[in-house]
């Protein structure tokens, strides 16, 4: 087991270097001269040249890539933002906790509310409870998140004036971003949990349990649920990646000062060090969460555990 985890962690670090390479390469081709972005319009040709030399922008692609990777991974230096003139690392340190918390809260709430609803729907299959819930869930997964956010802003901030529409500082600022992020999560989890439960209902071991006279309550809670929950764990892990990516749009609607908003502002000003580092840090957090989910998954499901413990070759990622 430990060997497996170690292997996965090592691979995660390698993937991150690959990710940094992809980010650097994609951003290398961004049109526009960085000197125009960072320096005021009145800067002379010599000043621009000096700026380019200082950042090594006149070097070849390979040299720049090498320097970027060396700085990022060996010295853990994310560079200085061209527009704000502060170390990017410092900015990310203050913003990442907010983005991470927002994602975490929405994922947890989505699971805590969505899963029981899905089970409830499955146990009432084809009755009105099931139908209502699945119609609502369908609408929930079909709405664009940022549009729902705008609708909530219109209702709660502009019409009812209960909540602030933007900013950070009080708990009230978190309410709308959390609600927006949670709706889709609840809907997705409810749908998945319902189909996963329905699949388990038909298994032989459920018939066996019923046949030997296990009370229905205990059939549901002891035999059905643990098995139905297994696929959900994987889906929740994948949701985290989606939610981290989705924060960019969501944070821009609520002007929520997280990494997503920082990334968006940096894109508008073509602030390359800031763009690269914020994407890298978001990718890093996504990867770590996925890894944790994978390990939990392996611990919970004895079938998967057996696969890699026995062969010793490590589980292939499906």
């Amino acid at each position: 087991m430990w060997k497996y985890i170690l292997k996965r962690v090592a691979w995660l670090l390698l993937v991150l270097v690959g990710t940094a390479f992809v980010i650097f390469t994609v951003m290398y081709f961004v049109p526009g001269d960085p000197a125009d972005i960072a320096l005021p319009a009145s800067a002379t040709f010599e000043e621009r040249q000096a700026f380019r030399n200082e950042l090594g922008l006149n070097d070849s692609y390979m040299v720049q890539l090498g320097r970027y990777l060396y700085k990022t991974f060996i010295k853990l230096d994310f560079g200085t933002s061209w527009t704000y003139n502060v170390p990017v690392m410092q900015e990310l340190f203050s913003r990442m906790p907010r983005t991470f918390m927002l994602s975490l809260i929405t994922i947890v709430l989505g699971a805590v509310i969505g899963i029981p609803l899905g089970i409830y729907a499955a146990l009432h299959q084809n009755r009105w409870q099931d139908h209502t819930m699945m119609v609502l869930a369908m609408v929930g997964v079909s709405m664009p998140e940022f549009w729902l956010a705008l609708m909530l802003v219109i209702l709660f901030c502009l019409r009812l004036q209960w909540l602030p529409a933007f900013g950070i500082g009080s708990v009230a600022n978190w309410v709308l971003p959390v609600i927006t992020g949670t709706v889709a999560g609840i809907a997705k989890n409810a749908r998945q949990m319902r189909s996963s439960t329905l699949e388990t209902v038909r298994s032989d071991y459920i018939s066996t349990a019923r046949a030997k006279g296990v009370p229905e309550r205990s059939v549901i809670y002891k035999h059905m649920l643990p098995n139905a929950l297994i696929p959900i764990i994987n889906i929740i892990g994948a949701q985290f990646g989606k939610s981290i990516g989705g924060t960019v749009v969501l944070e821009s609607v609520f002007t929520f000062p997280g990494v997503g908003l920082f990334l968006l502002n940096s894109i508008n000003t073509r602030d390359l060090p800031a763009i690269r580092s914020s994407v890298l840090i978001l990718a890093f957090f996504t990867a770590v969460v996925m890894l944790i989910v994978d390990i939990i998954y392996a611990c919970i499901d004895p079938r998967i555990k057996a696969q890699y413990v026995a062969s010793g070759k490590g589980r292939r990622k499906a």
Partner: protein
Amino acid sequence: MDKAMKTGRYKRKWSERSMFAQVMKRLAKNKAAMLGLILLLCIAIVAIFAPWIAPYSPTEMDLMSMYAAPSAKHWFGCDEVGRDILSRLIYGARYSLSIGLIADVVSQVIGVLIGTAIGYKGGKVDMIGMRIVDIWASIPSTLLAILISTTLGAGYVNTIIAMLISNVPGGIRSTRAMCLKEREMDYLEAARSINASKMRIMYKHMVPNIISPTIVGTTMGVGNTIISVAGLAYIGLGIQPPTPEWGAMLAAGRDFIRKYPHMIIFPGIAIALTVLSLNLFGDGLRDALDPKMKD
């Protein structure tokens, strides 16, 4: 045995003939799926025949009706320069549907081609291929799309490319996972034993067996892509105003949210309805293709 069968002139009913016919029959019975299909067809027809259906031109400005609220003359109201929102939504359906369809279908085809190859080959090819996909997919797809459209710049084709690049790794992963399961099946052993070529085994035998989940995935994927494209346009990447794309309309209407919420409400409903119809149809299609799931 009835007479017709004895005489050999028994004609099977259409619905007994093929797998395809059976799937269609099951699909036709599913009310939700049919509702989705009808909605989808309506939206597609509206998009195709936009110039004949739209009451006004999507770009014509009418300064007399700036910010006009919904009325009998302008059903969904007008925007900040007096363009009819309904007409813009109708034209916008062309962008959303076509980008969603092209980006998603092409990325699924690429995903199936590559995924089958590495899933069937296995061994080193699989190892290296999946490591590349791991790195490729390590950037959450929305972020990757944002990065790529930053580099490529705005525009219709560039948006499609950005969506394609961010969608492909998911397609490869799911195809490969299905192929790993199929690889051990008896029918492939049989194909190998009669010395069928690798290409033939992969694309004639394996692909048909993994195609139905792929079709369902594509249907649902179009909806997700439409939402992502709208999101890209909303944050100012992707398709830009004044093009009547739904996300771009939302972005333009955001500044007037306080006074004229109708500019935001209707484009969002258009997106949600389109995605809803795709999801309803996709759900129905999955049930129809996999009848075990629903009894």
